[in-house]
């Protein structure tokens, strides 16, 4: 039981990260109907940017708790801005010229961009994995068998349950960002423009919406969320390599499809489900095949439930 609860907590943390990446997929797919395959690598790039900024700030970080929080805020903001700029440039260079071309052209271009980004980072930062010392230590103890420890529950089982502060931080930030973006898309003029472009971009243009600008903003927003996910990934795992973009990217896409592509809460829900399945699978079956499990879910979802859990059934546009 304790083991299960611990895996549940780990899975929810992982799922939050997937959910944040999945929002980027879902927003871009919603607005231009394109699978932005490079999104996973944008996430990887943002992790590297965050790591570099954190390393610049390292002398301050060791001083106090307030300094750590300050550093995190700086990293989040700078990372969001820089990654947004990257994704804006990618959209301008690789996707916009292909708009209106045949349907699969942007997808192929995105795959090319994905390969470019991971190789670029490999060349520029070197092929070894980069690590970072744990920023936030400790956590709440939920259950333990050690009598001396102050804890919520005492059990006889040898497995303890802890929820690390960083896991708590990740979940809280995901929830906050989901609320903020939900508000942005549902209640502001920008979100209205985005939804208009999503429904009918030609009509939106006739009504005076700058479609190109709206699409650019969507890409920047998606990249900003990927940057947040990158910082969270760094806090949670403390290690990143140039090839770490593809698999989280595909899993986040799975999450987006599972939750219903085009729907923001759906993306986070899908992310949580994928995270839970992955950590429970690793805990009870075999860790070797956890990616196989994720890919199988992707295939099964796409084949049997293409509109997802929270998505609306859509007429197939071929």
């Amino acid at each position, binding site marked *: 039981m304790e083991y299960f609860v611990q895996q549940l907590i780990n899975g929810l943390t992982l799922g939050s990260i997937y959910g944040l990446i999945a929002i980027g997929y879902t927003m871009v797919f919603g607005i231009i109907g394109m699978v932005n395959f490079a999104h996973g690598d944008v996430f990887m790039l943002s992790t590297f940017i965050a790591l570099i900024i954190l390393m610049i700030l390292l002398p301050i970080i060791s001083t106090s708790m307030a300094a750590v929080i300050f550093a995190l805020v700086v990293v989040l903001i700078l990372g969001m801005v820089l990654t947004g700029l990257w994704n804006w440039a990618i959209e301008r260079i690789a996707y916009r010229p292909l708009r209106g071309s045949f349907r699969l052209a942007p997808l192929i271009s995105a795959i090319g961009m994905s390969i470019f980004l991971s190789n670029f980072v490999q060349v520029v930062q*070197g092929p070894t994995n980069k690590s970072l010392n744990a920023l936030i230590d400790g956590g709440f103890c939920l259950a333990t068998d050690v009598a001396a420890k102050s804890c919520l529950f005492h059990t006889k089982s040898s497995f303890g349950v802890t929820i690390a502060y960083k896991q708590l931080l990740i979940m809280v930030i995901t929830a906050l960002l989901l609320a903020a973006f939900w508000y942005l898309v549902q209640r502001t003029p920008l979100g209205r423009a985005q939804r208009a472009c999503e429904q009918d971009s030609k009509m939106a243009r006739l009504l005076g919406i700058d479609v190109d600008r709206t699409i650019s903003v969507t890409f920047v927003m998606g990249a900003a969320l990927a940057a947040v996910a990158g910082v969270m990934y760094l806090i949670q795992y403390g290690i990143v390599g140039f090839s770490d973009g593809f698999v989280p990217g595909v899993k986040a896409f799975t999450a987006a499809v599972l939750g219903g592509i085009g729907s923001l809460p759906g993306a986070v829900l899908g992310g949580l489900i994928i995270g839970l399945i992955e950590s429970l699978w690793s805990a009870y079956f075999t860790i070797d095949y956890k990616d196989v499990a994720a890919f199988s879910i992707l295939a099964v979802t796409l084949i049997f439930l293409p509109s997802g859990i929270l998505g609306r059934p859509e007429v197939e546009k071929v």
Partner: protein
Amino acid sequence: MAMTEQPHTQSDASTKIRNAAIEGLKFAGLLLALSIPILVLRIDSDIDHRPFLAVRWQLPLWIAGIGFLVRFVTLALTSDAPKKASTPWNLSPNTTRYLSYGGIALLALYPVIALALVGPAGSIKWIDNFGIQVMIYVMLGWGLNIVVGLAGLLDLGYVAFYAVGAYSYALLATVVLPKYAPFLMPWAFWICLPLAGLLAALWGIILGLPVLRLRGDYLAIVTLAFGEIIRLILINWDVVTSGYAGISGIPRPSFFGLPFTASDNGFAATFGLEFTPLHRTIFLFYVILALA
């Protein structure tokens, strides 16, 4: 007339150059902004594995400079006239036919040409590394053309069947045949080749049946997922595929039962030729060519 036209065009040209310069500067600024954190600072670790940041200032400046020049020159030299839509090469059917015949003839003569130009010792590199590699890509391209080109289905997991074929051949020839039909071993290549093809086709049917309900982007993603699944299974299923170590000692192809070895009953001895590994590669080259 000419007097009045002159200043006009001149100012036109100067504004154009100024605009091009501004655009170039914008582009260079963008490149700088993009590259500053990730290019200037490189995460390195010292001898005690403590990470530190290595600084290099020149690289982004070079990139920005080159970006400015490229953007400036392309903008300054292109005319303002609307671009003509590029037309694909319009080859007459006859030309295409001659081209493909020529290509086949070139491929057929390729080992001979390589032999004649660089001799037996030098040509093994050209036939083995380049010729056979090229032919493998030709085969792959052929298959992909059927799926993507003729059927219009973007299959990103196509290499999975390449892997299935390779592993079927390797497993059949190293595990199944020696156990159940050792007397067939000289013919291993010729038996396993069609079997591997059949197995890959079987997998194509198994994966294709559910997948073909999808179209477009989703099809591409699902095939990509299947490709990854097969790759991961091949890596992780140690008992059968021996994982990252791979399978070695796969029987080489034989000349319809005659092995390409230096032994007495080998290909070279039978035909009274001097032994060289070149025979095998040349033979393999023509096998692929014939199949294609």
